[in-house]
């Protein structure tokens, strides 16, 4: 492989990985706090792209306004999902919560089929995202650096929120001990809602960027990115936000590189991701950043 095509593939891998990471963060934040794998999270990715699509095609919004609209509405769906489906079940065994998550996922997918229609729709990119860029002898489409840049800004913003704001500190405390966090005067319901809000916003951005990269949307489009992002979250160490970012990037890069180095294996791309998951669960179940913390009693 030439140097140029290596870099082209690397950029491609990072942009795919950024998308996995954006989605993986929502899984990992919710898991960190509620110990729940929110299977409906992938469907928020789908909703994000559909709302952006309708923002442009139905409400004739300029692309940026449609994107903000889509992120806002998707975040609203995420918050309602927490309040209606998960909050009432929080005191019950985890399996109830888990079952509710599967149910919400099917509900959103089937509602989408009914409301949006089952036929795939063509998502049109804003014109400036369709340009060919040449840097030296490397060529990419302009959406590749845009995806990477947007994701990077969001990662940095999220890390700042989590580590340097009151709400972020409360979220980290919640992931350790919900009851004691309440004893600190934290409105735990509101903070859990805030975590869902952040996760849903990132999923919506992930969905819009996904539709820009692969410009065809359908009601089940969230399933595969959702599963891959879940693998990424486990790979990074589920419950750990930094881990989700690293896991997502790693998975994206490895997937693209696998196909680049061994084109004959390209059909096994998805199988490869899940093979990583199985191996990981066998040999390092805590993931890259996750560690078993010794607890003092």
């Amino acid at each position, binding site marked *: 492989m030439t140097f140029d095509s290596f870099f082209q593939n690397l950029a491609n891998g990072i942009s795919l990985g950024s998308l996995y990471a954006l989605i993986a963060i929502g899984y990992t934040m919710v898991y960190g706090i509620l110990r729940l794998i929110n299977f409906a999270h992938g469907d928020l990715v789908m909703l994000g792209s559909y709302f952006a699509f309708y923002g442009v095609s139905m409400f004739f919004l300029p692309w940026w306004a449609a994107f903000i609209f889509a992120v806002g509405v998707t975040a609203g769906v995420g918050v309602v999902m927490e309040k209606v489906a998960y909050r009432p079940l929080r005191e019950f065994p985890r399996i109830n919560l888990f079952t509710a998550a599967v149910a919400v996922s099917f509900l959103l997918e089937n509602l989408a089929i009914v409301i949006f229609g089952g036929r795939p729709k063509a998502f049109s990119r804003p014109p400036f995202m369709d340009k060919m860029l040449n840097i030296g002898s490397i060529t990419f489409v302009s959406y590749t650096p845009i995806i990477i840049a947007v994701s990077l800004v969001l990662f940095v913003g999220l890390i700042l929120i989590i580590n340097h704001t*009151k709400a972020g*500190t*409360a979220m*980290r*405390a919640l*992931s*350790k*001990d919900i*009851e*004691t*966090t*309440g*004893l*600190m*005067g*934290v*409105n*735990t*319901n509101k903070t859990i809602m805030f975590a869902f809000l952040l996760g849903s916003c990132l999923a919506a951005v992930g969905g819009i960027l996904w539709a820009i990269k692969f410009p065809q949307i359908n009601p089940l489009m969230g399933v595969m990115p959702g599963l891959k992002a879940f693998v990424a979250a486990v790979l990074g160490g589920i419950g750990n936000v930094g881990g989700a970012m690293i896991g997502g990037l790693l998975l994206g890069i490895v997937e693209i590189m696998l196909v680049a180095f061994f084109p004959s294996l390209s059909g096994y791309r998805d199988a490869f991701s899940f093979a990583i998951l199985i191996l990981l669960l066998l040999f390092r179940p805590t993931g890259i950043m996750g560690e078993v*913390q*010794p*607890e*003092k*009693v």
Partner: protein
Amino acid sequence: MLNISNLHVSYGGIRALQGISLNVEEGKIIALLGANGAGKSTTLRTIMGIVKPDQGSIDFEGESLLGLKSFQVVMKGIALVPEGRRVFSNLTVKENLSLGAYTRKDKEKIKADIEEIYELFPRLEERHTQSAGTLSGGEQQMLALGRALMSKPRLLMIDEPSLGLAPVLSQDVLSKLVELNQKRNQTVLLIEQNARAALSIADYAYILETGQIKLEGPASELATNDDVRKTYLGIH
């Protein structure tokens, strides 16, 4: 200041509290004593809104606390140092303290108060950037106490501070409570298994047995009561 009357609480089929009444007067240290399972922690958890009572009333400074969530009880001016300390091991010492001040908005004053906690517990200052999980049991108890004080509670409740601590350390914690009570007029409601130590610092004490108040009175009187001496102080 705090008036509990005829409080009944049950978990599942177990009646943990069967009509207890107690009173906490401002500026005093009140001890709640009793064996394991007598209902001491349940009492504090009910005050904090973690457990819902079946009947009875809890009034704080004339207002009912029934139906409030923990964070609302904290805003009314009550803080609980929970049993087993439960510091946030994934946060630093300083973050634990700041979280204790979550309900407050006065940033400058919070900073000054953290300094004050460091003066009270110098070990915490030495370790302020360390994660709380790396502290020893005694240090964690100091941190849990400091964290509760950060909300500026008018009533401080503390559940089994000497649990799992060496006798010297638990003496340390109790003497801090006395210091807080004398210097700041801090009202304290203390749960303790070590009845002797608790009676030595408390003004008034209640003795719980299987969900009922068995005995109450000024701590000095209870300390000389024959029943108490036999059952709780091990003196025959």
